[in-house]
C-alpha cells in the first residue's frame, strides 16, 4: 500500500473530508446517514456471515442444494442477502468436492461478495493475485500454503460481470460431533475465496 505514512495520509484524509463536505452542501451525502448506513452494512458483511452459510449447508443437505441452485433465494433462510442497501447482486456459490476445487478472482477490478463477506483483503485486490491466479492457480495456492492434490481439478472463477461468487469448502473430516456454530468457527475468509481448504 502506498500513501500510508504520515503526511501523505493526512493530506489525503483532509481532501476526502473536503470533498465529503462539498457533497453534503449539494445534498448528496449526509454524514450521519453515511455513518449509520456503513455501520449497518458492515454488521452483516463479514466473513462470519459466509462461514454461517457454509456451516448451515454442512448440516442441512437440502439447504446446501438450494444454496447451490440459487444462492440469492437461499440466503434469507439464514437472515442474509446480497442487497446491502443497493441493488441486489447475483451470488453463485461454487462447491468444492473430492475431485474439484474452486477459487475466485476478479482480474479486471475487484468484484467480491462484499455484501456477504465484507470488504476484501488487500492481496485479493492486488495486481499480483489478479494476474497470476487465473494462469497458475496451483502455484498461487501453494504460496498460500495450500497444496491442492494433483488429481483434483481446479476451476478459477473470474468475476467479470455483475455476478459474485463464493466458494463452499468441504467439511473437514472428524467434525461429526461439532455444532453448527462450532463448524462455522472452522471456516476462514481464505476458504471462502478458495485459497485455503476451509
Amino acid at each position: 500500500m502506498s500513501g500510508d505514512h504520515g503526511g501523505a495520509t493526512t493530506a489525503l484524509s483532509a481532501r476526502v473530508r473536503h470533498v465529503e463536505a462539498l457533497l453534503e452542501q449539494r445534498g448528496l451525502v449526509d454524514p450521519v446517514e453515511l455513518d449509520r448506513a456503513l455501520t449497518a452494512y458492515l454488521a452483516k458483511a463479514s466473513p462470519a456471515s459466509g462461514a454461517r452459510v457454509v456451516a448451515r449447508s454442512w448440516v442441512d443437505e437440502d439447504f446446501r442444494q438450494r444454496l447451490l441452485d440459487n444462492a440469492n433465494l437461499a440466503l434469507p433462510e439464514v437472515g442474509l442477502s446480497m442487497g446491502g442497501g443497493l441493488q441486489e447482486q447475483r451470488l453463485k456459490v461454487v462447491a468444492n468436492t473430492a475431485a474439484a476445487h474452486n477459487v475466485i478472482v476478479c482480474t479486471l477490478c475487484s468484484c467480491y461478495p462484499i455484501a456477504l463477506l465484507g470488504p476484501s483483503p488487500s492481496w485479493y485486490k492486488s495486481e499480483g493475485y489478479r494476474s497470476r491466479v487465473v494462469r497458475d492457480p496451483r502455484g498461487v495456492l501453494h504460496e498460500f500454503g495450500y497444496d491442492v492434490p494433483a488429481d483434483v481439478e481446479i476451476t478459477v472463477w473470474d468475476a467479470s460481470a455483475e455476478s459474485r461468487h463464493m466458494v463452499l469448502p468441504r467439511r473437514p473430516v472428524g467434525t461429526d460431533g461439532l455444532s453448527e456454530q462450532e463448524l462455522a468457527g472452522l471456516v476462514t475468509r481464505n476458504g471462502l475465496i478458495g485459497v485455503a481448504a476451509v
Partner: protein
Amino acid sequence: MADRFPPGTRVRTRRTDPPHHTRLPRYARGAVGTVLEPEGSSPLADDRARGLPAHTQTVYTVRFDARELFGEGEHSVMLALFESYLQEEL
C-alpha cells in the same frame, strides 16, 4: 426472448480491443470456450460506462481450458460474458 447460446454451445470470444471500458479481459479474447449456462441479463457494460443507451443482454457463464487461454495449464477458467462478446464456433 430465447437465449442465443444454449448450454454446451461452443463459442468464440471477440478479438477486438475496444477503445473503451469492456468486461472481456484481454487474456480471453479470440478464445474458444463452452457455454455452461445463461446466468441472467444486464445492460451492456461497454455502453453504460460511456453513458450510451445500453441494451439488456444475456450474460453467459463460459468455461475455458487454461491451455486455450495461456497455452499451458490443466485448470479451467469460468468467465461471465455478455452475448455480444460471443459468436458460435462451428
